[in-house]
């Protein structure tokens, strides 16, 4: 008898285990289709009780792990919840370099956010996957967005609808190390292409063995320079970036594209005022005082303030050529497609709050990113600020390239510069290849979109 008992325990244990495993598996699959049903039934039964009051809703906000932003959002959530007692907002964060990965793996598992913070360059990918819904037109009318926000925000307009809306935007500008400029007795900041070359030459310092001690201009194509090329140099030289319908790369349509590419490369190969990998990257070199000039974004103000408070530096608008143009970018909040009903209402409410004037101002103070709405940004207190002013003044001439795939487009650009630097490929050939390969990315993207 004892033995049979053992047998039955073992067998039933096995059975339970099998059930548990298969049960889990099928649960996961059916989660997405079936879960709305039970909530719908409970909703109707509860509806009678809570018909008068607004129902309690919990929404989830996802953004990447950037300590200052996480803290500010927590503060804002408390404020928002006191204004809307029936809404609870939960914040979830993922490290920047795993962000897409986490989103992509958690969402199919049925653990999606109700509002998600995305880099604008990722939007096309998210939209073409059918992951996002257009912002509700009643809360965010297209016309209003277009009159109140800086035009660069139109990068979030896909197929005629806005899929995301930013609280803040960023532009690039010329950072300069005041001590190093004084040492080289430079009193005037460069405002043209030529002056930038001359100034960076004067600021460059090498040792007896020909190695850099100080870079005149930090040179890191994979950091901000590829943005500088697309949204700055090409336009400044009289060229264009993308066709109106966002299908064709126009760099090679006029001589401007190559001229700009050559100009950017010449800093490393002809003038030798900077090189990639010096102190790992451009911002390290600049923040540690080993680069006199650097092209970097307004988001760097925060990290300099935090980690290199003693750095004596200033900010100037980017030098220009035939016209002015400055690269810009933004992180924007979007609503996933599966958010509906009360959650959707709560999500738009929170999104409205996040784009309010007060929040935009807090964002500037605590994060250092610029207000996305013209009326907020152009207040005297910002325009006249020594550090913020140059960034804000460029907003009118700023552009945000419509990325099909930011990582791949960046890699192609870096590869093109490496072909010249490491393999002695002629600049014009590297350029032609770059245009062709980038165009192919666009062709593939649009082919997939058109198929749907």
């Amino acid at each position, binding site marked *: 008898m004892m*033995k*049979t008992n*053992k*047998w039955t325990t*073992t*067998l039933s244990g*096995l059975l339970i*285990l*099998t059930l548990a*495993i298969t049960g889990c*598996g099928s649960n996961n699959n059916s989660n*997405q289709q079936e879960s709305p049903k039970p909530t719908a039934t409970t909703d109707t039964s509860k509806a009678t009780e809570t018909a008068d009051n607004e129902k309690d809703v919990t929404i989830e906000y996802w953004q990447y792990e950037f300590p200052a932003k996480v803290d500010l959002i927590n503060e804002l959530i408390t404020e928002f919840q006191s204004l809307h007692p029936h809404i609870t907002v939960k914040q979830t964060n993922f490290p920047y370099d795993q962000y*897409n*990965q986490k*989103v*992509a*793996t958690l*969402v*199919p598992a049925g653990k999606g956010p109700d509002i998600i913070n995305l880099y604008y360059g990722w939007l096309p*990918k*998210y939209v*073409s*996957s*059918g*992951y996002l819904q257009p912002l509700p037109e009643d809360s965010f009318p297209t016309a209003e967005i277009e009159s109140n926000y800086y035009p660069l925000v139109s990068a979030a307009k896909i197929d005629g609808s806005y899929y995301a809306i930013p609280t803040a935007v960023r532009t690039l500008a010329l950072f300069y190390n005041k001590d190093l400029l004084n040492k080289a007795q430079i009193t005037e900041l460069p405002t043209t292409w030529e002056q930038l070359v001359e100034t960076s030459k004067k600021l460059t310092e090498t040792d007896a*063995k020909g*190695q*850099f001690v100080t870079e005149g201009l930090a040179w890191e194509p994979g950091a901000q320079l590829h943005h500088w090329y697309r949204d700055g140099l090409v336009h400044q030289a009289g060229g264009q970036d993308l066709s109106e319908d966002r299908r064709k790369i126009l760099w090679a349509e006029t001589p401007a594209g190559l001229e700009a590419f050559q100009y950017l490369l010449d800093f490393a190969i002809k003038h030798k005022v900077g*090189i*990639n*990998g*010096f*102190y*790992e990257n451009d911002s390290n070199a600049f923040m540690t005082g080993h680069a006199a000039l650097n092209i970097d974004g307004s988001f760097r103000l925060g990290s300099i303030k935090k980690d290199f408070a003693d750095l004596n530096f200033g900010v100037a608008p980017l030098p220009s050529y035939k016209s002015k143009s400055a690269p810009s970018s933004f992180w924007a909040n979007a609503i996933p497609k599966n958010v509906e009903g009360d959650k959707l209402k709560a999500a738009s409410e929170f999104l409205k709050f996040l784009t309010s004037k007060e929040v935009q101002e807090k964002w500037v103070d605590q994060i250092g990113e610029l207000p996305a709405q013209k009326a907020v940004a152009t207040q005297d207190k910002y325009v006249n600020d020594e550090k913020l002013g140059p960034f804000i003044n460029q907003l009118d001439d700023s552009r945000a390239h419509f990325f099909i*795939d930011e*990582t*791949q487009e960046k*890699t192609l650009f*870096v*590869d093109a510069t*490496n*072909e010249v630097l*490491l*393999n002695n490929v002629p600049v014009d050939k590297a350029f032609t290849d770059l245009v062709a390969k980038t165009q192919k990315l666009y062709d593939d993207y649009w082919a997939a979109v058109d198929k749907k």
Partner: protein
Amino acid sequence: MLEQALRLTARKSRELLHTRLTYRTQRYLFIYIALGIPLLYFLSTRMAPILYAFNVSVREWDLLSQDKPYVGLANFSALFADEIFQKSIVNTFKFVIIGVPGQLIVGLAVALLLHNVQRFRGFFRTVYFIPYVTSIIAVSWVFRWILMRNGWLNEMLLNLGLEPQLFLQSPRQALLLITLTMIWQSTGFQMLIFMTGLEAIPRMYYEAAAIDGAGAWRKFRHITLPLLNPVIVFSAVIGVISYLQSFGQVLSMTNGGPLNATTTMVLHIYNLAFQQFKMGSAAAATVVLFAVILALTLLQLKVLNKKVEY
């Protein structure tokens, strides 16, 4: 009625168990069922995802969307037309060809040296083993700083009057340097395996060989190496598998650059899946990698595993 019937069958089956199964068979049955539990776990957490990856490899799926249309072998043909994937295969084999022999030779050398000392053996063993338990990311970043353009190693070269090198920024040097880092990091593990193997070789063989007048080399060549064969086969198989899956060091030291000179198959799979969201292509690449690892492992077991008479 039904209850009665059930009770009857239950009694019958209990009787059957008693009469038909001897104690021996019952014992075996128990052992196999006990073994079956981990197998079940293995099947559900390992085999199921593998089969699922096979399924995804013939579909077009961009991870965020719900529909996954069947596209046949389109992912595979696109993959083999992809220059970066071709390059990643070549690079992966370079990692294996340099890494596995490198790791075996260095590990064996250290093990042999340590096997012949008694004092400080534990100390050395610990020192050599520390890199293995250090985080890959930390090790990679330390080497990154050493190998930086204006880093420590270039400064040494300049002080010696030599030309500074591009190191990780050079398409010709980067892969070799990453492999050396990986060898450096896994030496401790390899050493430990070989030391265990060496312990298992009976002393008397060496004593007998010494009486016959064999020198150190001949003892090594004719006793140590043949008797270590099972350990070498094991290490080679494990080594090949791990170098075929080179990823962490590459990601944190060069991220596949410059000019894809260090992109490995796994890094490319990672990029396809989580940077470009092309799960179908990524799964197809995974299937290719799976086939390569399986084929190489079987080949190695066949070629390397020679029976040695003790």
